[in-house]
């Protein structure tokens, strides 16, 4: 297993380095000006040229790329002298991204199983016209439109919450915890709420709940609501407004694709002889679905998920810019707009690392779950 993980990491490193090289050349050639251009309003051209020379902004691109890579290995992801955003600013976008990405994945993954769960076993091998059409509709929905549809409702709900529970926003600096601690508690809150919604949906749709899932979500929410002080809770709830808007749009984006992938995979597996045998032997639908179809579907689902990961991560750019959520996507958009090539490169690095991390995690889970992959 360790050998497998090392091999995956080595493959990812080479891909990331090539990707970063392409992006470095792309940004510096295609975007006019450089990271010093915004200073032209404050400095004369001669001063700017001198500064450009000092910081090595006139050096050939390959030299600047290697300097940047060396900076990355020294722990500074936005190397390049003058910076509009520091490496710390860029790193602070990771947690907000995870705050929306993890709950969206959880929600979309669960909802995508619903059409297959609700289909009778005898019809599982047939086309699911309705769910396929709805899923395609979800994929084609333009994010600003989804925001337009949900925005007012979420705003009204939060106004109601604020008025009912007398919630007030306090600046994070005046709270007794650091910004990253606040972000972690917010991440736990968002994940706990999403997990609770998923478990409740399970009860509503299947009249059956996973005890472990419920207990886990309640434990997370207990940690947030009981072990933290009132001011912090009030701040977390109010800060979650934009996060839930982003999660809703991202989930719609993901769910459409996951439903379609699931439908195709379950349809193919349901046609296989071992499923027909299990049906002939009188196994219950629950057992056939959970033990034989769901487990076998993980392999192709994971492969498809891995291939689509960059699109998933890139959808953050669209969705976060739409909702104004301060994650990697929207900061990348702002950095490119502000010609802040150093910050953009730092973000590209983080996005590539996030993609590689998710890819390796999926592969490892696949190896653990599927003995056929393990044997290979």
């Amino acid at each position, binding site marked *: 297993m360790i050998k497998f993980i090392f091999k995956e990491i080595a493959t990812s490193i080479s891909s990331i380095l090539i990707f970063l090289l392409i992006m470095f050349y792309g940004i510096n050639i295609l975007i006019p000006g450089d990271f010093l251009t915004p200073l032209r309003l404050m400095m004369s051209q001669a001063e700017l040229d001198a500064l450009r020379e000092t910081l090595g902004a006139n050096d050939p691109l390959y030299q600047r790329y290697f300097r940047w890579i060396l900076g990355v290995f020294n722990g500074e992801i936005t190397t390049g002298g003058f910076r509009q955003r520091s490496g710390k600013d860029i790193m602070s976008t990771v947690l907000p991204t995870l705050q929306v990405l993890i709950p969206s994945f959880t929600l979309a993954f669960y909802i995508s199983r619903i059409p297959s769960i609700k289909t009778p076993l005898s019809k599982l091998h047939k086309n699911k016209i309705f769910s*396929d059409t709805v899923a*395609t509709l979800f*994929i084609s929905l333009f994010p600003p439109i989804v925001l337009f549809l949900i925005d007012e409702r979420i705003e009204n709900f939060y106004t109601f919450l604020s008025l009912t529970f007398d919630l007030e926003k306090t600046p994070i600096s005046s709270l007794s915890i650091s910004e990253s601690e606040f972000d972690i508690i917010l991440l736990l809150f968002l994940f706990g709420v999403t997990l609770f919604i998923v478990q409740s949906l399970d009860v509503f749709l299947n009249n059956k709940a996973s005890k472990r899932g419920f207990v886990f979500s309640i434990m997370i929410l207990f940690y947030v609501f009981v072990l933290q002080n009132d001011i912090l809770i009030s701040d977390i709830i109010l800060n979650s407004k934009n996060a839930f808007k982003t999660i809703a749009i991202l989930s719609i984006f993901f769910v459409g694709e996951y439903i379609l992938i699931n439908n195709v995979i379950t349809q193919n597996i349901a046609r296989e002889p071992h499923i027909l045998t299990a049906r002939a032997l009188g196994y219950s639908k629950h057992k056939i679905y959970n033990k034989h179809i769901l487990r076998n579907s993980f392999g192709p689902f994971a492969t498809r998920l891995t291939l689509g990961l960059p699109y998933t991560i890139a959808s953050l750019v669209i969705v976060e810019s739409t909702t104004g959520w301060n994650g990697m996507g929207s900061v990348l958009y702002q950095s490119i707009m502000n010609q802040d090539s150093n910050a953009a490169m730092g973000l590209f690095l983080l996005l590539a690392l996030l993609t590689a991390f998710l890819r390796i995690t999926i592969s490892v889970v696949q190896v653990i779950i599927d003995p056929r992959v393990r044997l290979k």
Partner: protein
Amino acid sequence: MISYLLKSTYKTYHGKIGYFCLGLLITSSLVHTWLLGNIWPENIYDPIVGFDIEIFPHPTTPSSSHFLGTDPLGRDVLSMLMAGSRPLIQLSVFSFFIGIATSLFFGTTIPFILKSTDKIIKEVSSSLILISPPIILLILGTGDFTDKLSPSLVGIIYGFISGLGICYLVVRSKVIEISTQEFITASKLLGARNFYIATRHIMPIVVPYSVSYMLASTTYGILAYGFASFYGQVGWTPNWGMMIYDAITYGSYLGGINYWNLLPPTFGFILCASSFYFLSISVKKQFGISI
């Protein structure tokens, strides 16, 4: 192979819906050109600079002269809707065919004939996968290219990156699987050249894989183009992203959103993006592609 693909995808209901939506979009684009040249006066119905001075104030509700009403800037919504399909069709067609050609040519020849360079190309492809459509458009739309950024150019760039990225990897894995099969060994023994085997025996088998992936990738290209046009990064072309932006932004200044401004481009996007996705599913279902 192409006619076989067309026929087999048309047999599924996904394919039928996909072809219907695509047909509708192409027809509306062609009809728009005809209407603007023969019936509609250009100063009123031009999708970018048209303005109906006989009506005040804009936007107006649907009427006999403007079937879908006018937008806050006085332009005919139906004309904008019909014209908006053209850039997306151009983008999709260019991206689809360039992607197919790139992935099939490189995907079949490199892993089978030029095995020594296969590993290098595989690494390049894995890195190209990370460059997704919103990022390409974001960078291209920021520079001096905005006015030169025609949908066909975006389609060519995007098609090339997708074809050499995700599509190449999918085709490559299938080619490696096929190249060990008996009929390939038999062809080699009979004296067939590698290039002949790659193009005549392997390529037809991997075409559905390439087609299904490029159709799905095109959907993301469409959405990314919509996003770029929403933020005004594609220059002065008639597009649905701009229509949605105008409806939401100017609508809120004018005391509420007019749904006849907002719904047509929304349905346009759904129709365009879903047509390609439906066709992709249809290919996957007909050829038993699970991934």
